[in-house]
């Protein structure tokens, strides 16, 4: 993430990762690319932030990982959402929507 976006809260990154993985199984680079895709290039997550986040969320029980084969037959670690992760995604998405709506209405006011 470049300097302007680097003060995004840790929770936002978590939400992005959860959403990016969704119902699929992705490896590290895949997650990074997907986030870039779904945010239309606004957020580019560097490994220095991505991997700590991935591992942390795995320890929290929201993601589970396993070794697998990538497209080019490379051995990579794949992540998917657990049930708790799904729940967490739903909760955080709802929370974020609420906050965003509130901010929008606040900025519209005169």
């Amino acid at each position, binding site marked *: 993430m470049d300097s302007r976006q680097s003060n995004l809260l840790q929770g936002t990154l978590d939400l992005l990762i959860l959403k990016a993985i969704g119902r699929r199984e992705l490896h*590290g*680079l895949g997650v990074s690319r997907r986030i870039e895709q779904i945010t239309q290039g606004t957020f580019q997550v560097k*490994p*220095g932030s991505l*991997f700590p986040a991935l591992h*942390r969320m795995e320890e*929290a029980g929201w993601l589970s990982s396993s070794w697998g084969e990538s497209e080019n037959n*490379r*051995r*990579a670690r794949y992540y998917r959402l657990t049930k708790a992760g799904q729940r967490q995604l739903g909760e955080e998405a709802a929370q974020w929507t609420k906050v965003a709506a509130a901010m929008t209405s606040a900025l519209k006011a005169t």
Partner: protein
Amino acid sequence: MNLGARIWSIIRNLAFRHKTENDLDGELRAYVDMLADEKVAAGMSPSEARRSALVEFGGVEQVRQAVRDRRAGAGLESLWQDVRYGLRTMARNPGFAILAVLMLAVGIGASTTAFDWMDQILLRPLDGVTQPQNLVALVSTTANHAYVPISYPDYQDFRDRLRLVEGVAVAHPTALSVGKEERAERVWGELVSGNFFAVLGVKPELGRMFSSAEYGDKPGAFPVAVISDRFWRTHYGSDPRVVGRTIRVNSHELTIIGVAPPDFHGSLTAEAYDLWVPYMEQPMLNGVEAWMLRDRGNRNMLAIARLKTGVTLGQAQEELSALAGRMAVADADMDQGMGATLLPLSESPFGPQGLLAGPLRILMGISVLLLLIVCANVASLLLARATAREREFSTRLALGAGRWRLIRQVLTEILLLTGIGAALGIVSVPWLSRTLQLLMPPGQPTLDLNTRLNLHVLIFTAGLCVLATVSAGVIPALQSGRTELSARINEGGRSGVAGRGRHRLRSILVISEVALALVALVCAGLFVRAFEEARGINPGFDPNHVLLTQFYLATNGYNLEQRKEFCRQLGEKMMSAPGVVDVAWSDGVPLSFEPSWWEDLEVRGYVPLPGENMKIFRNVVSPDYLKLMRIPLMTGRNFTEQDNEKSELVMIVNQTFAQRFFAGQDPVGRHVRGFGEWFTVVGEARDSKYNYLGESPTPYFYVPFRQIYRADMQLAFYVKVHGDSGAMLPILRNKVREIDPNVTVFDAMPLQESVGATLYPQKLAATLLMILGALAVLLAALGLYSVMAYAVVQRTQEIGIRMALGARRIDVLGMVEWQALILTGAGLAVGMVLALACSRSLASLSFTDSAMGGGVTLAGEKVMNPLIYAGAAVFLAAVGALAALLPAHRAASVEPMRALRTD
């Protein structure tokens, strides 16, 4: 966060570290490879793609570390790293580590032992009873506010009339003779009221305790006994059929009705008793006449009461005072001017508590002092090493370590030191605790000390550890965090900008150590002085070359007449033995551990002031007693054989008695009433010491053995010889055996030893304080030495220059010594102020184990003795100069050229 998942993660991360690291490595590499693949697919050459991928990735190690830092268990892991690092550092400087650990072990061990003693004796609630917090001691108070035991009739009144108290029980500790005559052994037991176990709430291990069946007041009606668990195991082999068997106590058969639980030892904390018998059996057991049980003046019972739930101590005290006031009026002949009060059990003036409370408090204080000195020393050593480690810390800071991490590192190292020191100290505590028995004089029941470490003590030690860590480490730790980077790395030498500040800190530490050591020395000195003085006091009689023994003829079933006859026969036989100068016998032994008994007197022609205490100490003696003791008569005559059961009752009084009641006039011919009869005074004896060597002149009187001796009195037998009194013992035993082979000679010892026994607590306190004081001085010297040694090393270059410029060796020596003396002097100044302040509180400590004694205190001029302060100061100054001698010598032997070349 899911707690279970988190804990599992921590375990997995710590246990399978290797695998986790490998996995992460593989994962990151895969990322880089796939990124490179993407770029190749976009048209880059493989090598350029790879390089670009790596640049985009950022530092691999940084990412790895970022993951590691946020992993679960990262905190624990870094703590573990600190510990291992600390251990490695200590291994590199074993001398410092060993020294620090040993000092901490001594300081923590001493403090923990002192606390353990205090906990056992003063803080421990009574064992084996229910709800000990509701139990209080009930004591009578005399007109001059001294605490005394209560009498049985008083107990009955309290028992029957107090409302706010659930129950009152009494106990009379005594030695009993258990078993057949030839193989009789002395067992310590308590003669107790019937409700004793009920009030204390003791549940039987086997059989039953005394119950309402034994509550009556009929003498001789309850020939039963309860034995202790220890006695049951050692004498009956834990036989479950012991209930119902008989036990022979003082030649009478009693039935064992129960065994007390293992943790119950009696009504006096920390003393172990083995046998409990109803007090109503005393006439049978001790040959005491039944009417004595009804004598209100016979105050020999220790009372415990249980407060009703919800009643405060204050409320119960009020009720008791009111009742005692009424009793004092109703039974004015015995109880006039007396009151009663309740005390928390831990403040009971009887038993080991009363005896040891003062000395233990002092010991605790000095131990803490010692620990403080130890901490100061460790801190000083750490500061010295901090200077040496500056470069190491600076490098770590430059490599990106947080300051907090460095501080935590130092604290962890210190905690390691204190932890190991504490572990060493704790190991020795159970062994040291046993030595408390030495504080108790002979002839008392053994102390029952719980030598297992209990929770209190462990918590205390842990607290000490933390305290020591903080006080020793906080300054060095904070200092390490404040290391300035460039200054450190660029400095070529060992001293830094912070070096001077550190040196000042170390100097302050040394000054405080010296001050504390002075306080310790002064306290020890005061004690030793008081002890020496007490020992040097002329007792007023001559205890040398006298063999003292005790007889318990009641246990052989002797009645009064038989006892007197026994004494007369034994006296005759001993007088005919070679080398014997005098023979005598009496009820009490002067200056022994048992307090002297007193009698309420009425003096014809003397009107006592209101509230005046007419209880005067006395001894019941054979005619030759005064002669044996070499106590001269000032006027009148001594007792003779003619003063017997049929003749006029006579008495000899001492000078203070005559001074007080006869205004210094000749007391011969005057009349005094006591023991229910009128006596004529026939002589005046010179004053001597009766209860404590340090007592002020006390009125005293003697009455003839044959006229006054009662069956509940003790019997002490004295034999004065030309040479060694101990050699007389076998002869005495033979003569006793000639008269009656069943009689045992107890407690044989030179009278001098018995006289010295009153000084036991003081003697041991003085000894312990000397040891602690010496340790304190040693530590302070050590601290001073290390500071001076370090300073010399720092100043090697300077010294080299001085010598090159013409300073002689003696000048350098003087310079170092002068520096040391300044430090020591400052410490002594501070210490003096502290010592003077402390000595005030010392002055009020007293050494007495029961009331009505002139308690010895370190009061008045003794505390202000300038010799002790001056002596301690001079001694410490000398030690300081000596401690600096070696560094000074090293400084003086510096070769200038070598010094100038050193880095």
